[in-house]
């Protein structure tokens, strides 16, 4: 794509993109560290994740500030407008992912206070799948690649299924032995957090498709109903 005639506008848009990527990188690392703290039973690592949350919050504020300035000062249109609208939306998803990594770390610290319930099998697989989805969604954003974003949407079901499967398994632990309940519940929470992270990655991917194609792929049922109400 040709560059903007206004060099400063071009630089401002570039800065916004870089801020989003920086934030994306930070929350990816937080998920990774939070999961390692669970698997290697390392509460210090969990505490470092919790300590990095203010950095994420600050980045969210910075992205919002950049977007508002661009909207107010540049009256962006077309692909620029869709890019800025996307940035404004996905920054919220990224910040929420950061919060979920903090939640995982909190459960990790609690789980470390008791002996392990069982070897982790599905949880690392879920974490891997959710992290890959986030990675792909952010790549699709950088490369403006709607096909890569669609791959993210397709991956979400697998994470949901793992979550359901894990829940059933942990339920049997809880039924067998009341002493297991607190640990099993905490692991259930972790699975839920990972499932939420995958949902946020899905939201990001949907916005990337909108950014690239101008088509809103969210809530297809609602859109079909609206189309039926307004024929032509």
């Amino acid at each position, binding site marked *: *794509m*040709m*560059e*903007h*005639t*206004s060099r400063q*506008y071009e630089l401002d848009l570039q800065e916004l993109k870089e801020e989003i990527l920086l934030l994306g990188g930070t929350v990816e690392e937080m998920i990774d560290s939070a999961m390692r703290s669970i698997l290697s039973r390392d509460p210090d690592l969990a505490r470092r994740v919790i300590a990095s949350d203010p950095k994420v919050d600050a980045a969210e504020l910075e992205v919002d500030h950049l977007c508002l300035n661009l909207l107010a000062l*540049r*009256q*962006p*249109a*077309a*692909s*620029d*407008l*869709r890019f800025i609208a996307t940035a404004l939306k996905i920054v919220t998803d990224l910040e929420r992912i950061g919060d979920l990594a903090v939640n995982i770390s909190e459960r990790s610290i609690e789980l470390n206070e008791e002996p392990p319930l069982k070897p982790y099998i599905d949880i690392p697989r879920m974490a891997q799948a959710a992290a890959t989805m986030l990675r792909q969604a952010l790549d699709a954003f950088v490369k403006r690649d709607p096909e890569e974003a669609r791959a993210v949407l397709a991956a979400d079901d697998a994470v949901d299924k793992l979550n359901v499967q894990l829940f059933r398994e942990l339920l049997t632990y809880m039924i067998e032995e009341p002493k297991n309940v607190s640990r099993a519940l905490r692991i259930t929470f972790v699975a839920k957090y990972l499932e939420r992270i995958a949902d946020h990655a899905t939201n990001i991917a949907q916005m990337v498709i909108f950014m690239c194609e*101008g088509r809103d792929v969210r809530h297809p049922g609602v859109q079909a109903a609206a189309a039926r109400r307004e024929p*032509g």
Partner: protein
Amino acid sequence: MPEVRIRPAVKVSAPRPAPSAASADPSMIEIEDLTLHYGTKPALKGISMSIPKNKVTAFIGPSGCGKTTLLRCLNRMNDLIDGVRIEGRIRIGGREIHDGSLDVIDLRKRVGMVFQKSNPFPKSIYDNVAYGPRILGAGSRVDLDATVERSLGAAALWDEVRDRLHESALRLSGGQQQRLCIARAIAVEPEVLLMDEPCSALDPIATARIEELMEELKARYTIVVVTHNMQQAARASDVTGFLLLGELVEFGETATIFTTPRDRRTEDYITGRFG
């Protein structure tokens, strides 16, 4: 300067079917394969479009793209320029405007025009508005008074000038003069109102008033406006046509053009990527 094309005017930007909102509305002006040359230089190349009734249609594009030329075709103002050659068809309200039997004066009564620089006659406010109706043989003084009041009211100027109708129009502010010109144009009850950069000499407040006026007037008239100001097209128009080097590159609902244009050239222009 428009380039001289060697190959025949193939419609690269073939008239795309206007998007839903534009095509669903009844059309007021039908332009078909319109080509215009100034001497040997083509200024408009194979333009086809359907301008909807009771809507504001904006033409945007860089200087020299042909947008003003296209606007001036609609009331045959280009007839006055030497060496102009026009091919193609323009129907307004179903009637071909190049038809030999058509009276150009009558056409210009049906298709009023407001210019970039306000051009009130050096007469009173009242006489400016009454000018057209008088030429066309207005009725009684009472009728004329009513027409003047109605036109100034529709142009959102009545309250400001009702007590000084017989003062010179030249004493009005720039924004008031432009609204007076709109009042003068609508005094003869046109069907179409053409506006060529109507706000380029006005401050933001006067501009906002004209834009609001366009919104009100479209209930009665079909408005076509040429503007250099893309934000004005975005704010004030329902349908937008983007012209480049005499071609109609894209034509459609304004909200679509400004969020998801289909043509790369439109995208580059409205996002500020001027080659």
